[in-house]
């Protein structure tokens, strides 16, 4: 499986964010998108996830499931946690697991991020770090080949960062793809880097 971006152009609010962008991520590879604030890291991830339309260029996932679109094979982990405070931790995860496609949601996701003990509590009582962990549990609960992570380590303590790194390594080892936007290291040993410069 390969994610290919060729000559991508992104225009938001009338301003050209980037143009002529090429990248290539193979199975088991992680691409870290870096660049200063406003360089378009988040826009690129949102473009791959299908939330922002491309103003030019081509995005394709080769050898993926031919019946599914690119966004339908991707997990998007953004700045917002997409949690409902009045639902319990388990209900939140169950909903996303069912909605995003798993037939029978299990408790593995919660256990994997260390939230098994608070499964029955309303999500309103979680701290920012716990909310982030709960979002990450979604990636485990539903199998999708491409992970799009927008600054995944923000709000996470060291232990949680290591947990996430472990999950990412397992995902890559299983032939998955990761595209992450980050300012610093994300805890993976060898990654490709894509540096976004300001458009001329």
């Amino acid at each position, binding site marked *: 499986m390969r994610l290919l971006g060729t000559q991508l152009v992104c225009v*938001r609010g009338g301003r050209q964010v980037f143009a002529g962008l090429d990248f290539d991520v193979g199975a088991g590879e992680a691409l870290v998108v870096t660049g200063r604030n406003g360089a378009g890291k988040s826009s690129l991830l*949102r473009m791959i*996830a*299908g*939330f*922002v339309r491309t103003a030019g260029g081509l995005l394709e996932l080769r050898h993926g499931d031919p019946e*599914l679109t690119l*966004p*339908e094979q*991707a*997990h*998007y982990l*953004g*700045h*917002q*946690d*997409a*949690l*409902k*405070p*009045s*639902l319990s931790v388990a*209900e939140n995860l*169950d*909903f*996303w697991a*069912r*909605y*995003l*496609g798993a*037939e029978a949601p299990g408790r593995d996701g919660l256990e994997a991020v260390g939230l098994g003990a608070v499964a029955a509590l309303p999500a309103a009582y979680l701290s920012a770090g716990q909310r982030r962990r709960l979002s990450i549990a979604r990636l485990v609960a539903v199998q999708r080949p491409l992970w799009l992570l927008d600054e995944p380590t923000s709000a996470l303590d060291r232990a949680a960062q290591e947990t996430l790194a472990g999950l990412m390594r397992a995902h890559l080892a299983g032939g998955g793809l990761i595209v992450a936007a980050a300012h610093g290291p994300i805890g993976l040993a060898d990654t490709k880097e894509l540096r976004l410069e300001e458009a001329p």
Partner: protein
Amino acid sequence: MTALAALFVRDVRLAIRVGGGGGIGVLFFLIVVTLMPFAIGPDLALLGRIGPAILWLGALLASLLTLDRLLAMDQEDGSLDLMLTGRSPLELAVAAKALAHWLTTGLPLVIAAPLLGLFLNLDLGSSGAVALTLLAGTPALTFIGLIGAALSVTLRRGGLLLAVLVMPLTVPVLIFGVAASNAALVGPLPFGTPFTILCALTLISIVVGTFAAATALRHGME
């Protein structure tokens, strides 16, 4: 189908839990209907004659004004983004959300209508007729309002803008809803004629509302 069922169940749960505001619509309906006689005067004969119109206007306002947050909340916490990566079509997803909203807001209005009919001096038969027309007509209001909810999400403006955008679209539903109720009350039209048209309007609104809302969301995402 499980994905849509999960979405439906989630929205129903959110509406009935603390902070969900599921009962607010009925409360609003009750207050609007109570306020009318203060403006019109406690003339029972007059109230009985315009009772169906008051109930319909109250239900219309209650249905539309509660729709404001339906999609906006999902947009603010990022849920709407994730829904786009789901495998069920966005049209069906917004339809499931609208259905859950109707069940928690529209259906209580229908149930409350006969009770409020007592305040307006409607007898049991007429109250039942109004409730029946509301049962057939409120889904149309919800699905028309869904278009406004989607537009106000993409424009990032809520509240009254939604009402302004959507209320002109609800005119036919209001006309035939009140016409059917009045036909049951005083005639001379048979009840079936306006009621059938009302049902047709609801079916059309479900289709048009669903597609228009999904299109608005797709094009408005940034």
